């Protein structure tokens, strides 16, 4: 059953999401987004030559992962706005954890705000942001 606005409360937590960011997945995304000319997204060794810790996940991919998490939870909810801040690099072939928690519920507009974070294995927040989601029912 799809999530209904009336069932959502301030403080509700979205199920944790552990995205697949193996290098081959990141490489596919970079190709689809026409970002594969930049080796920092596709090749660990070449990324390290640039001084990076390894091949990194494009920011728009991280934002997409967080948006997909919100969509997966909210069902028919429509993301009206997603706004992310990139604090640290997300490295391919690592295992980050994405979390979301409802921090505002507005019955007048049937919208909610979800705080979003992506943390790396060292519990460092690499991406944070908010999503505003509107519900029709």
């Amino acid at each position, binding site marked *: 059953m799809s999530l209904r606005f009336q069932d959502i409360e*301030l*403080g509700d937590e979205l199920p944790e999401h552990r995205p697949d960011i193996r290098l081959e997945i990141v490489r596919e995304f970079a190709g689809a987004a026409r970002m594969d000319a930049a080796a920092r997204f596709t090749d660990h060794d070449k990324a390290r030559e640039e001084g990076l810790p390894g091949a990194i996940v494009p920011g728009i991919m991280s934002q997409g992962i967080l948006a997909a998490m919100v969509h997966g939870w909210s069902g028919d909810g429509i993301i009206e706005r997603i*706004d992310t*801040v990139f604090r640290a690099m997300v490295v391919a072939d690592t295992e980050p954890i994405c979390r979301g*928690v409802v*921090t*505002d519920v507005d019955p007048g507009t049937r919208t909610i*705000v979800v*705080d979003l*974070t992506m943390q790396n294995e*060292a*519990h*460092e*927040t690499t991406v*944070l*942001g*908010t999503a505003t989601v509107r519900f029709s029912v």
Partner: protein
Amino acid sequence: MNLDLHSHSIKSDDGRAKVENYCEWIRKKELPLDGFVLTEHRQFDDESDYRNLEDEYGILILKASEVETDYGHVLIFGVNTDMRHAYDFGAINLSLDHVIEASERCGGMAVPCHPGRPNVGLAAHYHERGPVNSVTIIETRNGGSRAGEDEASIHLAEAYGYRGVGGSDAHLVSQIGKCATRFDTPIRNEADLVAALKNGDFEAVSCQT
């Protein structure tokens, strides 16, 4: 009383939290927090008036600033007109020594924050350039710290005899209150806060779960 001495609202470029939502969150989650201080990046928010929110939620909301110096980021408490003429809050390479001296001369208090953090913290700069004698208080508990950063801050405080405060460094609603400062005396306004900091009647507390 417990105050979160370090938080950001949407007034900061990277802040994503509305002040009213901080209040709602504190009450909904029953956080052990009596108030919080908004420390917007590189500015002092003169225009916002949060007195209605204070009354509605029974939460103290104070205003301060976070500026950027040659020794990292610094929280400025008790901001006033004299202080804002003494140095440029929007600059990114202020002299820490001058910021501390001018803040105190104008009746405020400057507290280096997340000192254990690479690049923007005091410890890294001390390692390269030696200590700044005018520092007396640092932030030893920061809600945004990565592993080892608070430990480095506490070590720095012990090594130099600094007092420690705590703040969440919240940029999202759900981050408020992760760290705070416990005061032995009541704080009602910015002047009380500065006086309590000068008296040393406080300790940093972590509320991380």
